């Protein structure tokens, strides 16, 4: 039944689908954990073969900073990745690129994920301290003892604009005591063309990803599991940046033990140790216009432990999670003089910075009645930083401590009420976060957006968020309306401010900025979502989002999404489906010149796709053909780094077999 409802909803709304995912996630999580039986589809309304980024972008509280066609940086509640925790199955992983060319989402592939769990604000503190919330990428996990022992899928497709060709395959074996699963994928794309049919140079990429997982049932109620993901990207262009990527590799491994309990308060304990290593090599030899040749390799290695218990008794349920990790981030820069026989110039942009974190988090919920529910949670974390070559930091901050320990508390509370067809919720939160490695210890990290070199400050105060949120909705058989709102008051908001001292190191740079704390900043996010079943097989959905971010002087914060909308129609009958959507942003009036932004104009994009399902020898097959940006509009959004134009008309085709 649930699947039928889900299927029905699938076409109804991108955002509804996601808020659905969001609301359901706790329940699903339990189901995945306890029953191992649910499975989510990584696809959007318009496209069934999506990249992780495309999938994430269908959530209404996610936006992206785009530096090209690859590895978009997800912004949650209009806040960048420093303010959110991005994890893979609760495992902390940190990108190895000082220029954020490798968000964690770039190291997975859609065919090794089962769902993405997005939590807003302090509700996301289960995975560690956060301000904006958490994005947890959930890996596929095949249950034991499925009726069908072998399962697999193969997906292939071609996108005409950038000649992207992709092949994704995954296979799983489910035995009574043993489960094995694996996936493999390869994507290759050339440069894309913008709406004026001009080639956007340096926007090509190649990505290879594979994953393996084995689980063994040690008893009726316990199992061990080992997992590994290996991801490799080569020759990736970043048209908005002055350099590209020659190679990045990630190895993400974990071993876990899960114990279920039939009686008692504790239902599940799931403990996992993990290790991941990332290496990232930027390359500017593809850019002969660069005055200076520079090597900028980066490494990030993390060891960690995540242990989680699910408790339930009568109307009370709780999740308790212990997170601990140790990360070492290293980034180097070596500039070559024009006369190559001369001495190269070397410095660390991350001077061997260790981050250790340990924290205990808890989410509790009580069903007060069938109609109302109270949630109460919090976490307490200890964050420790150590800069091995602290003398780099001393150049701008003489005498700054080499080690720094911070305590990061978090609290949140919420109340949900359902009355007939109406639902309401209110919530509040309070939480601290520690500065990121770049904010605390970064050294001459060039930001090509505002063209400043950024210097970290080890003495930055914790950023403290006070948050309130509310939602209201109405739902009947045909119509659903949901409005959401959240407001953040962030004390000691960390942002770069021009430093009068120091001069740029990178030749494109115009000056030096140091990370400093504003007294406060405020951020408001609103969204409205309506879906309506016009006919049995015809569904309409509309979404409107608005955000406003201001600093303590009433100035605009950068990368805040202007008023934006999405409206879509979905028709589905038997094996045939057709969908169309129009989306766009209004003019970005509240831009921030101080942070390199300029006025970004409004744009409208029209998308269209159709799919057909059939069976070949018991194999469920789906073909899809569609076009994004059908009218070939030339545009760039508020969050396109350096105003690089987005992709023009893109015709895509894909084919998927399930066996």
């Amino acid at each position: 039944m649930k699947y039928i409802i889900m299927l029905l909803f699938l076409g109804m709304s991108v955002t509804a689908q996601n808020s659905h995912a969001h609301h359901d996630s706790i329940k699903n999580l339990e189901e995945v954990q306890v029953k191992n039986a649910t499975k989510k589809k990584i696809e959007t309304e318009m496209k069934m073969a999506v990249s992780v980024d495309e999938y994430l972008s269908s959530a209404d509280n996610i936006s992206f900073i785009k530096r090209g066609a690859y590895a978009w940086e997800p912004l949650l509640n209009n806040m960048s990745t420093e303010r959110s925790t991005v994890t893979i199955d609760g495992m902390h992983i940190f990108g190895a690129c000082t220029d954020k060319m490798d968000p964690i989402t770039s190291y997975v592939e859609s065919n090794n994920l089962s769902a993405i769990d997005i939590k807003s604000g302090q509700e996301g503190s289960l995975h560690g301290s956060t301000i904006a919330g958490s994005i947890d990428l959930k890996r596929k996990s095949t249950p034991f003892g499925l009726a069908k022992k072998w399962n697999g899928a193969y997906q292939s497709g071609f996108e005409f604009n950038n000649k992207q060709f992709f092949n994704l395959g995954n296979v799983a074996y489910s035995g009574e005591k043993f489960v094995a699963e694996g996936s493999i994928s390869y994507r290759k794309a050339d440069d894309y063309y913008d709406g004026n049919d001009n080639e956007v140079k340096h926007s090509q990429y190649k990505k290879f990803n594979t994953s393996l997982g084995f689980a063994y049932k040690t008893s009726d109620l316990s199992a061990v599991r080992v997992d590994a993901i290996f991801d490799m990207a080569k020759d990736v262009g970043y048209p908005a940046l002055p350099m590209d990527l020659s190679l990045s590799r990630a190895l993400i491994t974990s071993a876990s033990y899960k114990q279920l309990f039939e009686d008692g308060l504790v239902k599940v304990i799931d403990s996992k140790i993990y290790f991941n290593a990332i290496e990232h090599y930027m390359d500017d030899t593809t850019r002969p216009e660069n005055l200076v040749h520079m090597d900028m390799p980066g490494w990030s290695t993390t060891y960690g432990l995540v242990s989680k218990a699910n408790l339930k008794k009568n109307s009370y349920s709780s999740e308790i999670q212990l997170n601990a990790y140790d990360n070492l981030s290293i980034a180097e820069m070596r500039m070559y003089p024009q006369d190559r026989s001369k001495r190269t110039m070397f410095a660390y942009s991350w001077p061997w910075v260790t981050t250790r974190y340990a924290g205990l988090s808890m989410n509790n919920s009580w069903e007060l009645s069938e109609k109302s529910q109270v949630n109460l949670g919090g976490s307490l974390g200890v964050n420790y930083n150590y800069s091995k070559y602290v003398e780099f930091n001393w150049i701008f901050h003489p005498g700054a401590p080499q080690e720094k320990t911070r305590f990061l508390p978090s609290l949140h509370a919420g109340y949900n009420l359902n009355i007939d067809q109406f639902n309401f919720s209110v919530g509040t939160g309070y939480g601290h976060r520690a500065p990121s490695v770049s904010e605390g210890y970064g050294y001459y990290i060039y930001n090509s957006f505002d063209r400043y070199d950024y210097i970290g400050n080890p003495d930055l105060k914790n950023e403290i968020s006070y948050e309130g949120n509310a939602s209201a909705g109405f739902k009947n058989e045909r119509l659903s309306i949901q409005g959401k709102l959240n407001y953040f008051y962030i004390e000691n908001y960390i942002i770069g401010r021009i430093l009068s001292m120091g001069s740029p190191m990178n030749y494109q740079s115009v000056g030096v900025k140091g990370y400093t704390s504003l007294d406060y900043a405020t951020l408001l996010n609103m969204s409205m979502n309506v879906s309506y079943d016009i006919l049995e097989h015809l569904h309409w959905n509309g979404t409107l989002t608005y955000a406003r971010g201001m600093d303590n002087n009433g100035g605009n914060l950068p990368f805040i999404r202007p008023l934006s909308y999405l409206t879509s129609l979905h028709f589905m009958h038997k094996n045939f489906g057709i969908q169309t959507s129009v989306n766009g942003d209004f003019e970005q009036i509240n831009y921030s010149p101080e942070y390199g932004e300029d006025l970004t104009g409004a744009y409208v994009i029209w998308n269209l796709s159709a799919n057909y399902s059939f069976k070949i020898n018991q194999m469920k097959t789906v073909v899809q053909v569609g076009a994004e940006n059908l009218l070939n509009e030339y545009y760039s959004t508020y969050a396109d780094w350096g105003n690089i134009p987005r992709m023009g008309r893109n015709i895509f085709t894909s084919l998927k077999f399930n066996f």
Partner: protein
Amino acid sequence: MLHFKTFFKHSLPMKSFKILVIALLGVITSCTIDKTDYEAEIGSQVPEYYEFKEAVSLTSGNYKISIEALNGTFYKGYNELHLKVSNTQTNQSVSASEVTVLPILNTSSSCPHEYNVSYDATNKYFAGYAVFTSETAVSNSWKLYISFKADNQKYEINKDISVEKQSNKNLNMTTFTGKDNEQYVIALISPQKPKVAENPLVAGIYKYNKPTIPAGTFPDPSQFSYSEVSGYTLKLDPRMPEPSMGNHSSPNNQDLTQQNDGLYHGVVNYTMTGNWTLNLILMNQNGLILKGTVVPTDFTPGVEGVKSELYIDTLF
């Protein structure tokens, strides 16, 4: 498909997984670019010497005077000198007094030096310095004139010495005539091995004391007298001259002022390894600029940085 099935059915999956993980670990640990060995990196251009060894010894009668310098070599620039007097018969050290040192270049000029070297009772040697202003070459020959008193008898000896090129650019020096028409020498003394960090910077600033009396018997020390200038200020503006660095500078530097040891102390921040120019302005006690010009502070990528009239290049 068949392959997969047989693979999983007939092999030990855990074992194959282990092998795979080990193989993957092998892939990931074999980084294509090695991490830089930072210690080796900052030491690669900079010979660093901490050990005093005998550079030359002179003998007169039963006495030998041994002069020690870092690495047993006299280099162009600042040299700290340790002098020890011993008896050649007994090989015992001798308590000498009134030890003087006078370096002479081509019988016509000298260089900054401490003429009357003082006795360091703790370390049991006479300590002085000499700032050789040129390397030994066909047209440049250096001779040391030493005198000392032992057993109430004065000994005077001299010997040709060799002054080598200082390959550590952080110990560079410069000579110039100031606006007051005096001859000055500025020599870097420390750090030998700078880091990408705040570096305490030590320099000696010396002035040639023009003789006021006619020359006596050669070598007459009054004709070859130098002294440490006192109460001056050496303004500092370090920059990277490399065109691609666009006149890059660093923050939080401190001008050099004289401390109790007579030397001038300041702070230089090097933001990265490579070629640096210390742009200098020398001012006397009254704030009068004796030499040096203010350099442009603009960031000018692709253009070699303009240097002050008075500068010393460093490299590490």
